């Protein structure tokens, strides 16, 4: 396998900056890899060969001219297809938006471009980020590089799978209920959901506005931190963007890598165990906790009783907001249009378009959300869910009064088989059991690989959670753990197509 595609982003950036290798060569190596394996993995919905090579050439020109470049300049990246980027389609995994070319860049996209990061293309996802397996994409599922019969997680399965398949060293995901962390866990990669408001949502096609948060995906904690600092920071175009300095996550990742966690108090959330948890996942988690203790951390058990209500609260809030956010897809200004034969009213055309354009899961959530917001039901559903949200936030606050970070398994199970849960929405929803509380509270959380389950040999993730704007705490712990445990991703089996 080409050495370039196995390199970390930090290594690639250093080599490009020192002209040991050109950004064009690096981009081409990854484009070649995509050509080789993406037929089997299907991580990408769109590959922008020309745009990627053009961006790489610009970095090479800058380096050759001696101009200062950013710490990730020339490094390729896979962008989740829920963020707008000029020159490429944005579909959100939906037939409804097929062919739509946004006329503007998301703030995240703009920052990536300004940092000289080379966008390879757009990655597959569950339609409008609704799902935990990427099976809800209108353009076919993405497959887990560890086992092509298994799901790569979701909704951002394409982004994480592209990392695990060595198609890209960096990716951007979005996390509404776990869509960065759960795919990270089941593909053996790192995924970070920043503090709500830490990364601009401008240009992120909304699923649930009060929960959505874009974040970095990578194969190492340091790479994630480097990408985090590129995309984070205040944006006047997003009213919910926080006007505060970006937490020093790169410094924290470097500090953590020295392997010392003396004095760090780590809380184990007691609610995340028991029924529904795969024994191999729990054993991996226990080993991870033991490792943290060995690194000097103090381990404390913490109870967060309201977390038990996180899943039902999430499945009222997220669909409610989604039912309103997705109303704009009416065929009047963009996207496909169905039934406009001159005999039908605008209302009928809207209705036919939405019927044909949305998949089953999206329709299910629009219906749940519409119902939950209806007059007479609002207080019982949306109103109660918001109260639960407040209780969960308080549980976090209490816990962080005692400990520096909280840890848990990222997912209750390893990657399940494609098709296994498609007829059972509740089983599917449970994949996000451990990740949802951080979305409801707006606090940061990340998943770092914690080895392979001893039952099925599939990756398991360790979730590290921190208080709002304290991302550096979790990066430090994750980096220390990663350094001690060793890279899990090195174990990824070669893909059939690339062997």
């Amino acid at each position, binding site marked *: 396998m080409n050495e370039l595609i196995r390199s970390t982003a930090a290594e690639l950036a250093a080599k490009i900056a020192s002209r040991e290798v050109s950004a064009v060569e690096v981009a081409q190596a990854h484009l070649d890899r995509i050509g080789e394996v993406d037929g089997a993995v299907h991580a990408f919905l769109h590959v922008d060969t020309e745009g990627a090579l053009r961006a790489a050439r610009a970095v090479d020109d800058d380096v050759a001219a001696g101009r200062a470049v950013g710490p990730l300049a020339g490094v390729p990246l896979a962008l989740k297809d829920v963020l707008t980027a000029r020159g490429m389609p944005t579909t959100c995994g939906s037939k409804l938006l097929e062919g739509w070319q946004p*006329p*503007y860049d998301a703030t995240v996209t703009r920052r990536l471009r300004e940092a000289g990061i080379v966008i390879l293309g757009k990655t597959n996802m569950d339609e409008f980020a609704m799902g935990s397996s990427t099976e809800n994409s209108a353009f076919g599922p993405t497959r887990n590089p560890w086992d092509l019969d298994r799901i790569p997680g979701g909704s951002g399965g394409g982004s994480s799978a592209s990392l695990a398949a060595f198609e890209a060293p960096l990716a951007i995901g979005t996390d509404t209920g776990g869509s960065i962390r759960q795919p990270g866990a089941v593909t053996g990669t790192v995924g970070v959901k920043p503090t709500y408001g830490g990364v601009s949502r*401008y240009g992120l096609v909304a699923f649930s506005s009060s929960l959505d948060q874009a974040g970095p995906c990578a194969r190492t904690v340091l790479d994630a931190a480097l990408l985090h600092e590129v995309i984070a920071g205040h944006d006047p175009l997003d009213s919910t963007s926080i006007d505060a300095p970006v937490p020093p996550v790169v410094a924290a990742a470097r500090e953590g890598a020295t392997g010392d966690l003396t004095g760090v108090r780590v809380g184990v959330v007691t609610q995340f165990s028991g029924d529904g948890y795969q024994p191999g996942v729990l054993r991996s988690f226990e080993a991870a906790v033991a490792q943290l203790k060995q690194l000097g951390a103090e381990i404390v058990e913490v109870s967060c009783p309201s977390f038990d209500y996180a899943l039902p609260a999430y499945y009222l809030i997220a669909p409610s907001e989604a039912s*309103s956010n997705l109303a704009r897809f009416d065929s009047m*200004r963009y996207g496909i249009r169905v039934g406009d034969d001159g005999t039908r009213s605008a209302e009928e055309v*809207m209705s036919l378009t939405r019927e044909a354009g949305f998949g089953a899961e999206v329709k299910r959530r629009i219906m749940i959300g519409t119902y939950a917001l*209806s007059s007479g039901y*609002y207080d019982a559903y949306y109103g109660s869910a918001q109260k639960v949200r407040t209780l969960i936030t308080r549980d976090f606050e209490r816990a962080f009064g005692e400990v520096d970070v909280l840890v848990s398994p990222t997912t209750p199970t390893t990657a399940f088989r494609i098709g296994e849960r498609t007829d059972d929405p509740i089983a599917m929803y449970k994949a996000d059991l451990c990740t949802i509380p951080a979305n409801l509270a707006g606090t940061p959380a990340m998943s770092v690989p914690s080895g392979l389950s001893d039952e099925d040999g599939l990756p398991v993730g360790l979730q590290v959670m921190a208080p709002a704007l304290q991302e550096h705490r979790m990066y430090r712990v994750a980096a220390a753990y990663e350094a001690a445990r060793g890279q899990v991703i090195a174990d990824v089996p070669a893909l059939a197509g690339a062997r």
Partner: protein
Amino acid sequence: MTRVDELMDYAEVVERFDPVLGLEVHVELHTNTKMFCGCANVFGGEPNSNVCPTCLGLPGALPVVNGKAVESAIRIGLALNCSIAEWCRFARKNYFYPDMPKNFQTSQYDEPIAFDGWLDVTLDDGSVVRVAIERAHMEEDTGKSLHVGGATGRIHGAEHSLLDYNRAGVPLIEIVTKPITGAGERAPEVARAYVTALRDLLKALDVSDVRMDQGSLRCDANVSLMPKGATEFGTRTETKNVNSLRSVERAVRFEMTRQAAVLADGGTITQETRHFDESTGGTSPGRTKETAEDYRYFPEPDLVPVAPSRDWVEQLRGTLPELPWERRKRVQQDWDLTDAELRDLVNAGAVDLVTATVDAGATPAEARSWWVAYLTKEANARGVELAELAVTPAQIARVVALVNAGELTNKLAREVVTGVLAGEGGPDAVIEARGLKVVSDDSALEKAVDEALAAQPDVAAKIRDGKVAAAGAIVGAVMKATKGQADAKKVRDLIIARCS
């Protein structure tokens, strides 16, 4: 369309029923930019030229609140004697319509920026009615649909529709009254007077163009009737498309007579939106609200709450201008006007113009005579507002000064103003170009007088005999000879002097 025989005589209506009004006024703010994006907020313009990802509702785009619009909303609230919320949020009002880009309107629901106020409204006879204000809240306007091919220009029967999103996202303030009861037969007048007072107030605040004809001020009139003496309100209708002050009055009056006829006939009023027809003065049903629309309001998660500090609110209170009715009171005293004179001045919309003309040196009487008597006719003839005429108060003051100095006659002065209105330049430029100066050169005038006397010796003899009235014929001849540029009084004096 309701036929005339389905209406009840108005006198009978007010004898048998008590009307209840509720007025909802939408005001477009004239901020530089839209409510939630940086697009220009201008009326007209090429369709879809003032649009961006946010006001087009493109996927991923987000709103940011226009601080200037919040400031205007607070000033309006303060001028309406409202309480200003210490903390309030926007909400989404969800419904599908092609000219609404997101298929939800970002509005305010149960947390308006201003609430519980009042506005004192002066009726035609000078009596004052206090109208209670329920709330004033912020929201965004929709785009505009142009329905092509139908007979009515409405969506029913149209062949196709064109959408213009230039207006989408323009800041709106919706001002809602509490139910107005007890107005009786004067209900239509109260409705008109309320909208008039509100318009004047908003104009004084300089927050909106308040042009009903352009839709920057729109009134929806809710009307219901209850049997005389009852306390429980009847079913109401909401009449839209009421595009002038006069229409407000007509629409309310029409609905009263229509509803009364239905009720007297044992029928029931359907709760519905009705459409006012300017040409017939009637209303016709629009959307029925039998299946009450459920807007599924919820707090807008893309925006943070608005929490105006008390300091800011007080600071804005300090920016409130003299309110129109206070100003009128002061003007009436200062200029010593009768009630009728004040009413004419106000009805002509000339208070500002006359004040400015006085400030530029004219007396109130001179200024009023120009604006209220003469220029109002000119404005009406052109079909424009008085303030839109192409003449400034300073120019009128200049013309007045020239008349007082004897350099222009009243007749010439009007000709000068006509030239100014025609775009020929300022008064002095018009005088110069048209050669309109009064002929005050005595020798030239004396010569013209002598010639006229010589031409009509009979008349000259009569004048010499003391029949001064005969001088008129000579004056006419002189004026004709000088092309009207002589001061007639002076000519007359000269003739008499020559003949004595």
